[in-house]
């Protein structure tokens, strides 16, 4: 078996005395869409933030075969790992173009322009709005901008935290189409979603998280048909 691009094992994250994530092990291989589903507060976002280096964590973390536990956020971005946070974390008083340009902050102007053209192909909407301030855009556009900005860094693994949160169903469908396109273009995806049905439909493999622990994992299609999952996570959709 090949080495995973992103791997965490026995990862634990604590907020003070509360252990929000406990002994979680997870892998993302090249060309995969992997999803983590679970209820609100299960520790999914905490897991992604720890993998990005924003939160201190105990446990082993590797990226593309190399240990990354001690790397700062900035070094993880340079290595090829990007996170689109649940709150998007855009530069709201700056233009769409400036937001994208800063996504490729390490690269030359020429390289950044080439990448920006690629992002505009993927998100034509952003091209129309290129001079608009990020903070004045709709929720769907902001999500697209956050994804576009993350893609500017040229990630090998893109982690998406609740990309469909608060968006209209038609836009959610667009976002999932884009996620599948990204996989075709060679970007592995780690997707955290409360919208479990959409996530399981898009993903190859899935992990189920409950109270900070991974309780089930397997092929997304198998989990989608698991009666317990259906009852707990798919019932309302």
């Amino acid at each position, binding site marked *: 078996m090949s080495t995973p691009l992103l791997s965490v094992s026995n990862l634990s994250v604590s907020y003070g005395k509360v252990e929000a994530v406990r002994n979680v092990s997870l892998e993302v291989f090249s060309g995969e869409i992997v999803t983590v589903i679970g209820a609100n507060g299960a520790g999914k976002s905490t897991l992604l933030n720890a993998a990005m280096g*924003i939160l201190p964590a105990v446990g082993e973390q590797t990226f593309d075969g190399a240990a990354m536990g*001690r790397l700062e956020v*900035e070094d993880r971005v340079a290595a090829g790992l*990007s996170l689109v946070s649940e709150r998007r974390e855009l530069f709201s008083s700056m233009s769409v173009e400036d937001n994208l340009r800063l996504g490729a902050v390490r690269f030359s102007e020429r390289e*950044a322009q080439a990448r920006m053209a690629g992002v505009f192909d993927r998100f034509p909407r952003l091209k129309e709005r290129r001079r608009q301030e990020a903070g004045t855009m709709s929720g769907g556009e902001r999500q697209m901008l956050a994804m576009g900005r993350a893609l500017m860094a040229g990630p090998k693994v893109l982690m998406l935290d609740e990309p469909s949160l608060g968006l209209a169903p038609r836009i959610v469908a667009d976002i999932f189409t884009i996620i599948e396109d990204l996989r075709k273009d060679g970007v592995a995806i780690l997707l955290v979603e409360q919208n479990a049905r959409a996530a399981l439909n898009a993903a190859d493999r899935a992990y189920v998280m409950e109270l900070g622990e991974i309780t089930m994992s397997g092929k997304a299609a198998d989990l989608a048909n698991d009666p317990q999952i259906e009852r707990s996570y798919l019932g309302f959709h």
Partner: protein
Amino acid sequence: MDLTILLFLVQDGITNGAIYALLGFALVLVFAVTRIIFIPQGEFVAYGALTYAMLQGGHVPGTAYLLPIFAFVALLFDLYAERSRITGAFLLRQGIEKIVVPLALLFAAREMAGVSTVSSLILTVAIVAALGPHLYRIAFQPLADRSVLVLLIAAVGTHLALTGLGLVFFGAEGQKADALTDFSIDLGPLPVSGQNIAVYVATVLLIAGLYWFFERTVQGKALRATAVNRLGARLVGIRTKGTGKIALALAAGIGAVSGVLLAPMTTIYYDTGFVIGLKGFVAAIIAGLASYPLTAAAAIAVGLIESFSSFFASDYKEVIVFTLLIPVLLVRSFASKHTDEED
């Protein structure tokens, strides 16, 4: 009061106001990027003025010796912080940044003291601006994630330390530099000196330069982005520790330029900077520590009020200027929503 006196007061007010505007910009810039209310800004002015006066007089300024010391302490901090992941490239970069550059500037100061006005000017700005990043590394980087209050306390401590170091390295004697130029032009009854014109030109150039830097360059945009959203900046790979150093280098450079401009107009002592910096601070606070154009307008107003009050009630001129803060803070506290800082 006749027209001539009025014009003199206005000119004086605008000249001082332009310098306060520069200091106000530095404070807004540092606060936006690092959340530090940067009390020691005035020390950079004093260091700049004294460094320039000494270089012009053919002496090696104390700051030229202070810089390698600061850099060496910062080097020790970095070596300790990175002790488990030291690489050759890291050592090379640190060596250039913290040993070669400071010693080269010291060497240049020894060789070029008194050579020309231009070389003194360039050396002054280079030496004082270079102090900024090391100061950030030593005093503020270890506290970067702490609250505004903690950073303010560190800033007050830094101010006291820099004033003390100023006394050690420059002595208690005040210094005054020669004017940049003897040029003078008469506008009606009002003679405008080359020094005044230099202040206006430098202020306008610095404003234009800052605008270009923040609007047109990636580094400038990265600094703004850090100010807008620190986490977002880290997520795109901006080194927010680096942005703090750039902000302090800019602030120190702006302080040095202000010092060079002031040095021929008034005698500067090691501790003169504080009061000058406070006036920039008043302007920045009136503008809410947020807006550059408002800061410029407020700084000009502070300069004008100061010059008129020094004419009508010279004993009270500082009191009048600083009293301005009270109504401004009152209005601000009623007009704005109170938000407690999260930490």
